[in-house]
């Protein structure tokens, strides 16, 4: 197969009680080449995060396959993660839970540096990249704000020398003023490290800012994909149009998106 991440009709099904089952990801095929910055958008509960977890091997596929640089991504069970898969790293949604509260920042970044196949940048350089002062190495996560922690998590992910970074709504729990800043920072750091980025968000405005290609997901399926500007200017699917209409416009008039257009 080709370079990068390839999903071939991948499905993830959660078994629920009494024989019911929920297909969170339903036959998704996609490809992310090296160095690409791809945005994945969709409403809450459409399967974005499950897709991200499946790419990391955290979910069991019920059908289809996920492979990275030709190597299949198996489910991460009790064994150590395979060497070749360590190059897929994830940045989580909740900055308050993504760093171990009992270990110093420096130690946590050091752990990630150890698995870097090449020459890992020094911890201070990594922290400088995400605009954290180098004295942070001896501090604990609780001494930082949510935005700072998310940037430290980015530094940790980059320290491992990844080829694919997945941001699972990494900005969703940050306040509005920080969202764009952390998102562009993530994009810049990923590009500088030579990694491709799958950026998951429900915020199309942010995705437009950083992604070159956008995937629109609904009820577990990719319903539209294309270059960001094309999707933005000429959406084909009614769902995508509604998503775009739902972006609030800061025109000073205090208007909210029209609700009746959002409802089916």
């Amino acid at each position: 197969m080709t370079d990068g991440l390839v999903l071939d009709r991948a499905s993830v099904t959660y078994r629920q009680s009494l024989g019911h089952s929920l297909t969170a990801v339903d036959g998704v095929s996609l490809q992310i080449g090296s160095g690409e910055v791809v945005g994945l958008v969709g409403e809450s509960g459409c399967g974005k995060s499950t897709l991200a977890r499946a790419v990391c091997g955290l979910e069991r596929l019920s059908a289809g396959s996920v492979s990275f640089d030709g190597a299949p991504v198996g489910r991460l069970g009790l064994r150590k993660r395979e060497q070749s898969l360590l190059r897929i790293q994830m940045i989580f949604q909740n900055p308050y839970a993504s760093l171990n509260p009992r270990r110093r920042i420096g130690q946590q970044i050091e752990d990630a540096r150890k698995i870097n196949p090449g020459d890992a940048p020094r911890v201070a350089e990594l922290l400088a990249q995400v605009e954290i002062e180098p004295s942070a190495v001896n501090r604990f996560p609780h001494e930082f704000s949510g935005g700072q922690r998310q940037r430290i998590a980015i530094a940790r992910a980059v320290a491992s020398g990844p080829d694919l970074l997945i941001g699972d709504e990494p900005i969703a729990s940050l306040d509005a003023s920080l969202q764009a800043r952390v998102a562009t920072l993530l994009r810049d750091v990923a590009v500088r490290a030579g990694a491709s980025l799958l950026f998951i968000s429900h915020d199309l405005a942010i995705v437009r800012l950083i992604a070159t290609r956008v995937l629109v997901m609904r009820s577990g399926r990719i319903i539209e994909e294309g270059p960001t500007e094309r999707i933005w200017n000429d959406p084909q699917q009614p769902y995508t149009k509604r998503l775009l209409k739902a972006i609030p416009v800061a025109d000073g008039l205090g208007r909210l998106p029209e609700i009746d257009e959002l409802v089916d």
Partner: protein
Amino acid sequence: MSTLTQPPETGASDFDALLARRRFRWPRIWRQPLMIIGSVVIALWLLVAIFAPLLEPQNPLAQGSARLTAPSAAHWFGTDTLGRDVLSRIIAGSRVSLPLAIVLVILSMVLGSILGALAGYLGRVVDEVIMRITDLVFAFPTIILAMVVAAALGPGLQNAVLALLLVSWPQYARVMRSMVIGARNNEYVVAGRLLGAGVATSLIRDVLPNVIAPILVLATLDFGNAILLFSGLSFLGLGTVPPTPEWGSMVSDGVKQFSSWWIATFSGMAIFSIVVAFNFLGDSLRDVLDPRSQRTVGGRSI
């Protein structure tokens, strides 16, 4: 009740200011009366245990002609059936009970935590097997199961510890398991796994340090329980072998000589004081470390 509804710090601001001026501030945990009482009593008993040979007025094993004498200037706590000095025996008994309780609690904490952590982290078959064994142990009353095991192994210190270890590890396993199940899906644990950590590294580095506090509190609470269980076994004749001075067996002797009240009373008070002290300590620790009872603690701190 009004102290509970107010923010805890307001009432103590003068006191805090005073402490700040002295550039020293007792940590919150030391500002609770129960914590102080418990620690002082335990510290006293530890000192007694360490300096027992110096403190004993007489040889605790030496038999005298004065049998069953009431407390007097010569024998502060009286003498027992064989004319041995009760005070000396109580002091010597601290050297038996305290170290054994410590060993027992540490052993059961280590054993229970390891098994519980494995059950919680690995899940599935491992979880089922370990948890069914804990259910099995829990199904019997603690002291009765310990008696059965001790009776089967025969009396003696080592066997008593073994028997008590067998009945006291499951509570640690249960607490540990539930804590680990709660912690293992935390994003930092998943992130650690994604960074290539194996199960052992993940458990030791990411999970355990974040769940160990409740286990330590449980252990502190359990010290008193361990002393009580051990004294209970000795009382029943399954713990220490005579003539070893042990509080539980001394109470047992006292019960046989009911008119000589001093034998059972003083050894009973020794057990009582240290068990209550450990319970105070454990309760205060739990209150401070448990965020849900923080407000109550704030109302009670001095």
